[in-house]
């Protein structure tokens, strides 16, 4: 059974259509919801949680209808909003304990879960200080902790890497990955940066202008087009000719040569050519096709 399933879900505002008859099924694991700003990502999450009403269409989360079964749905879902939502005068511990109780946990369980969850997201001694003095990275962790504190079956994370520096981004992304691998909780995570999601997602849903552009697994995106990246001491152009003569499909990308990886024999052929021509091998590594490139092709196709 899919974790999330929508059927012609539509949201119209007076001036814009945020979602246009969106029909998707999202399974378990980590799913990236990708789209430009204003593509309808946040609107979709809010409709699934019942924070906003859909204009038409239906949807279920974990088998619960979003309209008729909202309370049961929300007790099994965690939500990390995109924008700042933390009261500055409370400490992280106080806030997360309180919100755990708001999710229906008895007081003692709420305390225990809050302490556990804050530790898992990497907040230690600072959790007793008022949130007002936290850095952006720490605030994002508190927001994540409150989404996980009631041990939901699925969490919706709206732009969790927003406002973080590169190191903070990496930490947050690996934390998101761990939510599924270590905690066993399915994740729907939005981002406008496709590149950062491919490392951590099992599947990607791309929406644009409220409609589905593409939905598939990350493996599908990247498997079909694996290539070998090759760096040599010799002039890349000479090497390119030599490799092409050996019957390999090869293109030049700056100093690198990209060889289409057909099967294991490709490695042997490359080795032989390099050895025969004395090209001076510096580096030989498989390179996955980035989803971003697929996305670009896809987007171009849609536009043209």
């Amino acid at each position, binding site marked *: 059974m899919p974790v999330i399933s929508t059927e012609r879900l539509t949201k119209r505002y007076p001036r814009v259509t945020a979602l246009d008859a969106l029909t998707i099924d999202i399974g378990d694991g980590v799913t990236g919801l990708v789209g430009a700003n204003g593509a309808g990502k946040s609107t979709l999450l809010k409709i699934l949680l019942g*924070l906003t009403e859909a204009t038409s269409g239906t949807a279920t989360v974990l088998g619960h209808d979003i309209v008729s079964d909202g309370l049961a749905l*929300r007790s099994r879902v*965690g939500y990390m*909003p995109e924008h*700042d*939502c933390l*009261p500055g005068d409370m400490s992280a511990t106080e806030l997360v304990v309180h919100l755990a*109780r708001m999710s*229906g*946990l008895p007081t003692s369980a709420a305390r225990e879960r809050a302490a556990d969850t804050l530790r898992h997201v990497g907040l230690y001694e600072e959790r007793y200080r008022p949130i007002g003095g936290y850095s952006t990275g720490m605030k994002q962790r508190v927001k994540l902790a409150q989404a996980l504190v009631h041990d939901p079956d699925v969490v919706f994370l709206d732009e969790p890497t927003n406002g973080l520096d590169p190191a903070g981004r990496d930490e947050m992304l690996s934390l998101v990955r761990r939510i599924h691998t270590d905690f066993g909780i399915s994740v729907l995570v939005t981002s406008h940066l496709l590149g950062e999601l491919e490392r951590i997602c099992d599947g990607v849903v791309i929406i644009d202008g409220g409609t589905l552009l593409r939905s598939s697994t990350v493996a599908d995106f990247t498997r079909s087009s694996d290539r070998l990246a090759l760096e040599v001491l010799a002039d890349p152009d000479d090497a390119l000719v030599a490799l092409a003569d050996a019957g390999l499909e090869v293109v030049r990308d700056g100093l690198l040569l990209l060889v289409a990886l057909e099967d294991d024999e490709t490695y042997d052929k490359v080795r032989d050519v390099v050895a025969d021509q004395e090209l001076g091998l510096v580096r030989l590594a498989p390179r996955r096709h980035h989803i971003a490139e697929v996305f670009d092709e896809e987007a171009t196709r849609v536009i043209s």
Partner: protein
Amino acid sequence: MSSPDSAPAGVIHNIGYRGYDGERLSRRAITLALYTHGLRGAFGLGRAARSKVIPMGMAVVMLLPAVVLAVVAVVGEQMGQLSGPVVPYTRYAMILQAALAIFVAVAAPQSVSLDLRFHSLPLYLARPLARADYVRAKLTALTTAVFLLLAAPLLVMYLGSLAAGFDAASETADVAQALLGALLYAAVLSSVSLVIASLTSRRGFGIAAIVTVLVLSYSIVSSMQGVIAFDADDPTTAGWVGLFSPMTLVDGVQVWAFGVTTSTPAGPPNDLAGAAFLLTSLAVVALGYVVLNRRYRKVKV
């Protein structure tokens, strides 16, 4: 061989993620938890020390005169000067209305404006809780807090009266009436204040607006009543004017329903007016509840 004793002290073991299979409470119980949180918050409990200063200060201001009055009752009776309380229970709220106003003006924005300012509502509404539950919990919590603030000194005075040996039956009846009045005071003041507070995300604005509305309406109404009742010699009209401020409104209900002396220049002039005062009080509370619900249906999250 390693034994538990030989393990170095202070090592943190990463026990990994543990799920939660325990009890999950109903929506009702969650609303109750939010109510308790709101009630504690009104007195600054569970918040920073500086949040406690005003609520606790006002609680002391409310209690001190009652303690003094209780002592006066006991001493006065012994000296044979007194046979009943110096101040009727039902008038206590009006006498200390400044403290009441300050308390509610700080507690109401504390309860709702902060959630608006910090945009915390999505955190609540993404949980098994409806918007109406949020409103209900906040309103009942503030009403309870104001009621406790008012009921505690009344009980102190009552104990003083009992200790002084005043007629227990009539004292009990009187304090019961005053407690009912206190409940109505609490409900009216809380709904008016919460509606005002819910309109602003700035706590300062909320405090200023609530104090202004409560104090200004009382000043205008009571001075108009004074002018009309004494200078124009028209206590009937003066009595009706009492409808237009929360404090004189509830005082009017007490005067009519319990036959106690009024704290204003003129109480409701007849039964029709008395009934109007009661209905208006209840309407203010109901309207406050409806307006809050409408307000929170519209809040964007």
